[in-house]
Each structure stands twice: as structure tokens, then as C-alpha cells.
């Protein structure tokens, strides 16, 4: 029992980083991790026989994060995205043509790539990042994200578009063209 507790505890820094990335709020992230670890302790028996503790804990944490996201959301107006506008000319065509990426699939094998991706995610505006992570990481449908963030579907698609455009630009600058 004591061993299980300490091996769970050893994952706390990792889980905290994971939660912070999605919640953008240190205190909320600590709450989510605390709840996840307590739930994990209570569910020790259901872990027995599984191979990867971190994956199991991350799964529990995801549910806690979704719960928290559901509780804390408010509607705000769509602001303009100047970085996005700057990519296009007055006819909405590319100012600079987006270059091809060098070996994207190979990047998925590299730890440093994921560090660059995390850094780029941290650079997104809070609500944009939350919508994007709910969609692409947690796999929620748009209507569910709209409800959680109290925004319209159109607003949601705009946020997801902005997130993708900002991330591809950020990865291009900090990874693929580096």
C-alpha cells in the first residue's frame, strides 16, 4: 500500500504540468491533480495488473479536468486575432506562402518536438487553448465545447481555426524551420 502511494506521488509533478497546460491556472491545476490522486488511491485495486501507472493516472486526471472546465466558464465576445490577419493580404490570400514541413511523422518520435508543442500551446490565448485542448486532446464534440465554454458553435469554430493557425505557425518557427 505504501509503495503504491509513493509511486503515485512521484507522478505528481508530471500531472501538475499536464493539468496546468490545459487549465491555465495553477491553483485549479493543483486541485485537479489532488482530486485525481485521491481517486487513484481509492481505486488502487482497479489499477492492479495494468502496465503503465502514468497513463492510468493521466486518464483519471483528464476526467477531473473536464469536470473543472465544466464548472468555470463564462461567455466573452470574439476579439480580433491580429496575428492571423497578418498572414493574409487585402484579398485574403497568403502574404507568404506556407512552406512544407520537414518530416512531421518523424517529429512524433522526438521528445523535443513535444516540448516545442507544449510551448506553442502555452502561447495561445486562454480560451482558444481551452477550446482546442477540449476538442483535440480530450476529444469532445463542438456542441459540448460550446456548452462548457458558453459560446456559440460559430465562435467555437473560429477559436479552433485560430488555434490551429497559431500552432502551425509557432511549430514552423520553433521546430520545422529551425
Amino acid at each position, binding site marked *: 500500500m505504501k509503495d503504491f502511494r509513493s509511486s503515485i506521488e512521484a507522478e505528481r509533478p508530471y500531472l501538475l504540468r499536464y493539468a496546468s497546460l490545459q487549465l491555465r491556472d495553477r491553483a485549479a491545476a493543483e486541485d485537479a491533480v489532488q482530486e485525481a490522486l485521491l481517486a487513484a488511491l481509492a481505486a488502487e485495486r482497479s489499477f492492479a495488473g495494468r502496465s503503465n501507472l502514468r497513463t492510468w493516472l493521466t486518464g483519471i486526471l483528464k476526467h477531473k479536468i473536464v469536470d473543472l472546465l465544466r464548472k468555470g466558464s463564462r461567455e466573452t465576445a470574439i476579439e480580433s486575432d491580429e496575428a492571423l490577419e497578418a498572414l493574409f493580404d487585402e484579398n485574403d490570400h497568403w502574404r507568404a506562402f506556407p512552406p512544407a514541413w520537414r518530416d512531421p511523422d518523424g517529429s512524433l518520435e522526438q521528445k523535443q518536438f*513535444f516540448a516545442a508543442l507544449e510551448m506553442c500551446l502555452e502561447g495561445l490565448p486562454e480560451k482558444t487553448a481551452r477550446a482546442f485542448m477540449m476538442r483535440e486532446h480530450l476529444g469532445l464534440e463542438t456542441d459540448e465545447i460550446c456548452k462548457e465554454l458558453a459560446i456559440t458553435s460559430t465562435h467555437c469554430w473560429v477559436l479552433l481555426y485560430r488555434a490551429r493557425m497559431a500552432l502551425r505557425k509557432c511549430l514552423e518557427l520553433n521546430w520545422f524551420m529551425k
Partner: protein
Amino acid sequence: MKLLSCKEATSLASQRLDRRLGLLERLSLRLHLAVCDGCSRVAKQFAFLRTAVKQLGERDA
């Protein structure tokens, strides 16, 4: 059918990952991507982002 600008095309390429596009939207997007290398790269990069972000947290930090 209206010709899409690159901004409209990339926006539809993004939305296609989040909702089912209408017939006209699908056709005009396909037409644009067929002739625009920049936008078709970006469309592929959107799909790659999905794969990459899914894997976040599944590997060691």
C-alpha cells in the same frame, strides 16, 4: 460556385475537422485545395496537429 480565398479555404479546412461541411462547402474546398499548394499543406498540417496533440501526455515528459 464561389471561388474561395485562402483564408476561407483554411477556415473550412479547419471546420471540416469539427463539423460536417455542406455539399457546396466540400466542393469549393476541394477545388481550392486542388490548385493551391499552400492551403493543401496547411490542411495536412491541421490533421497532423490533431495526431500530435492526441499523443501529448501519452509519453514521458
